[in-house]
């Protein structure tokens, strides 16, 4: 649920990075945090276990450019990917304006990607959100640098039947990370426009 503040002339939006455990959600945010200019970013918060697995969420506030005189502020969140943290995932999806699904391209993780996608749909429905009803949605095929990855064609077929924007990525080096972010930001702004013209 975007928050339009006419007083501060700001638009605030919430973007949630979703995907199976260890697919690279936190790494995406870390890279954005490292590369964003100091004046555009706030502090990154990671509520993680001692082994650096996300326990509740990561949070990174990021300002992008202005649109029609309004500052755009994006609140980026990651969910914990491990299966048993489902209750937390549901909470974090609440009020999302957009979702980025980060898939782990490794063949061994194919099943985990499919399960996570199903889980996403289920949890969105419980939050009255629906990928089939125009919720801005982008898919990232991460870890393209590793051997034994599933082809993008195959991943597309299995994960992206609605043909939403998709990007190949190596989050560890940053490849594709900003392309993914840009693409989701554009969808959010386009949706904002649509909502206003109904």
């Amino acid at each position, binding site marked *: 649920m975007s928050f339009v*503040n006419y007083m501060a002339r700001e638009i605030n939006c919430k973007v949630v990075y979703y995907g199976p455990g260890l697919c690279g959600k936190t790494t995406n945010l870390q890279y954005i945090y490292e590369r964003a200019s100091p004046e555009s970013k706030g502090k990154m918060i990671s509520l993680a276990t001692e082994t650096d697995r996300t326990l509740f969420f990561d949070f990174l506030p990021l300002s*992008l450019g202005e649109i029609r005189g309004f500052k755009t502020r994006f609140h980026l969140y990651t969910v914990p990917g491990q299966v048993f943290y489902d209750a937390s995932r549901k909470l974090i999806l609440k009020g999302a304006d957009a979702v980025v699904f980060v898939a782990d391209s490794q063949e061994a993780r194919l099943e985990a990607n499919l399960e996570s996608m199903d889980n996403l749909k289920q949890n969105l429905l419980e939050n009255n959100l629906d990928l089939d009803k125009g919720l801005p949605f982008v898919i990232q095929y991460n870890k393209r640098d590793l051997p034994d990855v599933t082809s993008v064609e195959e991943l597309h077929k299995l994960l992206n039947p609605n043909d939403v924007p998709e990007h190949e990525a190596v989050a560890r080096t940053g490849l594709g990370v900003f392309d993914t972010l840009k693409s989701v930001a554009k969808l959010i*702004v386009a949706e904002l426009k649509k909502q206003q013209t109904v």
Partner: protein
Amino acid sequence: MGNPQMVMYEEEFNQIQHVVDRLVKDANARVVFIVDKNGQLIAAGGDAENVDTTSLASLTAGNIAATGGMAKLLKENEFATQFHEGEKANIHIQLVGNRVILVVIFDAKSSLGLVRLRVRKASDDLNAIFEKLLKKVQEPGADSPFAEITDEDIDNLFND
């Protein structure tokens, strides 16, 4: 359609800010801020420059979401009030009208009793303001600057 938007106008913002500023004074608080349940900061007052209100806002909302989740599992109403006592700073968190979260940070210059008392009054005032705001947002015909967004505007978002 997806989610309805939350909107803030100048008139209501000023009223909210007034409540916040008064609460800072009346409760002898260090910082007072208001967050929506998604973690977006709505207003802040007191010594807000010296704390990271953006981070606090997101953590507060996460906290309320987590305890709300626990309440649901116990078939309990949402826990509307939370209090955390530190060595120097104390934090009082109040859910207002199940919509927004009122956070008061205070030290030894104040007391829990005083904060509780003042928060009660402020909550009533805030409830009334958000009630009004909600009605206003639902009225049709408010013209929006975003209807005119062009593809070029969207491309320009990243050109800096």
